């Protein structure tokens, strides 16, 4: 037996000496993956969240002002803050963390279509609990969309719900509850990043299913595929149902913002891919640089360029869309479907080509391989 213990010892020594006698590679070859995480956290995610939380703060103020004094001017101001917040949300929605999943951040803020019947019942009965998973489609930006634009055909009638209706105070309270909840959920997420999670995120720079890069990339692609491609374009265009579903458009009641929201989200995803700092022209390390480094794509074309090109194709196609997607799918759905097709091409580049090059698995099952 001793001989074999000796054998095992010499083997482990051999493995060690193999690695130690060869100096580690020259620096240019050594891509710093941790720097990607730092760029994401410090220059994109936290600034975008900070900006969003300022906007939700203003939204909360505007909501309270409106509730105290529900006139035309307060309504306009609340609508402005709502829109600014909704656009800012497009820059943070894709970033999932264990905290955002725990509080269902994305769903609580932006699930549409709104269940208007339930919203009315909540207001009339007063016995709602917005923390329940069953009530995600009765709050957030889409429900505000309904309450600020969709209650009636014109502003005067909408305002009458808040100042002269039989339960106008319940309407006002509901608006306050919604803006308060949006703001407090956002604070939870931002505080999480600012109080320790940032370091945890950046230091989890290893490889494997639970590393920051793998998880972020999976979430990024999930967001692009489900929320951007399907949620904003595919589902209303009837790609999954066979018939267009105009009421499933983002910003359905305000009508004119669905295109703007979509384009903002498209820009945010492209910026993330390229590592572009939030609200700045500077770019830092991100997936595009990582791909350039790996450059395992062999037949001449580089993947970073292909993906960026496809982002541009999608944007160009979407320029021709009506600012209201609900109108668009009813007037000329084929243009909507063409936009979907352009978005779809990037799903393949991101999910097949990029994931292969980065060697990140789409599944989280850490089963054995060959």
């Amino acid at each position, binding site marked *: *037996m001793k001989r074999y213990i000796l*054998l*095992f010892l*010499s*083997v482990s020594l*051999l*493995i*060690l000496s193999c*690695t*130690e006698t*060869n100096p*580690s*590679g020259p620096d240019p*070859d*050594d*891509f710093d*993956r941790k720097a990607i995480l730092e760029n994401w956290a410090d220059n994109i995610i936290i600034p975008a969240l900070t900006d969003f939380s300022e906007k939700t703060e203003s939204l909360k103020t505007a909501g309270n002002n409106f509730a105290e004094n529900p006139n035309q001017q307060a309504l306009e101001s609340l609508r402005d803050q709502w829109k600014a917040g909704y656009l800012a949300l497009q820059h943070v929605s894709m970033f999932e963390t264990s905290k955002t999943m725990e509080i269902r951040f994305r769903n609580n803020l932006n699930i549409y279509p709104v269940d208007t019947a339930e919203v009315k019942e909540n207001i009339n009965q007063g016995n709602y609990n917005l923390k329940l998973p069953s009530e995600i489609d009765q709050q957030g930006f889409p429900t505000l969309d309904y309450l600020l634009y969709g209650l009636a055909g014109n502003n005067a009638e909408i305002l009458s719900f808040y100042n002269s209706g039989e339960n106008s105070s319940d309407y006002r309270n509901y608006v306050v509850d919604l803006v308060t909840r949006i703001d407090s959920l956002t604070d939870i997420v931002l505080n999480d990043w600012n109080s320790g999670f940032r370091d945890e995120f950046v230091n989890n*720079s*290893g*490889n494997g299913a639970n*590393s920051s890069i793998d998880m972020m990339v999976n979430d990024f692609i999930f967001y692009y595929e489900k929320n951007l491609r399907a949620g904003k374009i*595919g589902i209303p265009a*009837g*790609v*999954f*149902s*066979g*018939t267009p579903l105009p009421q499933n458009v983002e910003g359905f009641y305000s009508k004119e913002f669905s295109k703007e929201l979509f384009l903002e989200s498209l820009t945010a995803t492209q910026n993330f891919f390229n590592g572009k700092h939030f609200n700045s022209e500077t770019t830092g390390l991100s997936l595009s640089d990582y791909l350039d480094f*790996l450059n*395992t*794509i*062999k*037949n001449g*074309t580089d993947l970073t360029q292909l993906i960026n090109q496809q982002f541009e194709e999608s944007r160009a196609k979407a320029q021709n869309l009506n600012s209201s997607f609900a109108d668009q799918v009813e007037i000329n759905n084929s243009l909507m479907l063409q936009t979907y097709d352009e978005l*779809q091409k990037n*799903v*393949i*580049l991101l*999910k*097949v*080509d990029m*994931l*292969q*090059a*980065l*060697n*990140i*698995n*789409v*599944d*989280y*099952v*850490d*089963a*054995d*391989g*060959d």
Partner: protein
Amino acid sequence: MSTTSISTYLNSYSKAAPLAVFRVFFGLLMLISIVRFAVNGWIQKLYIEPDFFFSYYGFDWVQPPGEWTYLIFAVCGLSAIFISLGFKYRFAIITFFLSFTFIELMDKTTYLNHYYFISILSFLMIFLPANSYFSVDAARNPKLKAEFIPSWTIDAIKLLLFIVYFYAGLAKLNSDWLFQAMPLKIWLPAKYSIPLLGDLLQQSWVHFAFAWGGALYDLSIPFLLLIKRTRTFAFVLVVIFHILTRILFPIGMFPYIMIISALIFFDSGLHTRILDSISTIFKINLDAFNNSERYSFESPISKKFSLSIVGVFFLFQLLFPFRYLLYPGELFWTEEGYRFSWRVMLIEKAGYANFKVVDPETQKRFYVDNTKFLTRFQEKQMSTQPDFILEYAHHLEEYYQNHGIENPEIYVESFVALNGRRSAPYIDPKIDLTTIKRNLKSKKWILPFNDEIKGL
């Protein structure tokens, strides 16, 4: 070889210790594997949670029996204990073979060459007298007890290991592996955070060294293990190689199984010492098994039967991996004849399959959300393998027939990237997959591979 030398060989005997050691460790490692599988929650995740399971052609009748799946795993684990003890060995090894193979047949999503290896190895062991020495059976049955067994019963295991290594080496003789270092070039750089090795794995020359070293290892190791002078050196290589693969890739128990299996190549002296140590620990009287008897089969017929089965088994093992020659097209692309052939770690495929359902009556068309039907793991496997795609399309056909579309047409828009190449269209998008029958014939509806991979 003349017939007399064959019959001399078949009537030659060796010490039974190597096969007994093999049996003890095989049972033990299988037990650990099963327990590990259960502890990781994989029974639940892989066999109970999914709504749909992919079947091997002709084995659609093998389906996970819901919660009873745990029982199959329990039976499999228990039989592994019996094998290790050599208690009711024949019954135990048959039970193990059947339960393990049943588990593997339940869903081909989880196919691994390692699992196939375990299945056929346990099948082979049914016909070997692994319980004639150092076993409960032999202790209780003096007629069975034998210090010597036919040499071929030990050599059969060596031959199987020989085939596994050598065929795995042959499969590496292709241009992607040798001249592009693919798919290692994709896999290794991602292991940047491994201590000491991480930086090295970023270097191109390391990828090529691993590729050529791996091929050379697989092709030469069976010979180095067979030759007495190089055996110890070869075993050191086996340990290094498998520990490295364990560090670099998620391959579970397999490295340990291969390291322990390679012990069978050593002379009986080593095995006797191993059994000695075990005997000392568990206070077993090893000498009681040293009765100088030769193992004799229950009857001449049972000997002939065992020999013929083992003969046919090896003929099959030698030929079956070459069935890919019967299919046109690039093997790595179509994967027709890819499984059960010791093609290990040769391809990195990523895919995307988008299914379109058309109702010919209303001309209504829509796309399927795969996550409604498959787990992410199943979807990943499905999107790169044609037989999965077809089976899934048929499943969708049945589903939509039950949901109001009398005669749905199913099309797939699919893209696959192979070994770092740009993704390319995979299945003909104009083919209504409901019109295609599942069979083993060449699949004409796979689009051609626009590149060439040279080699075996």
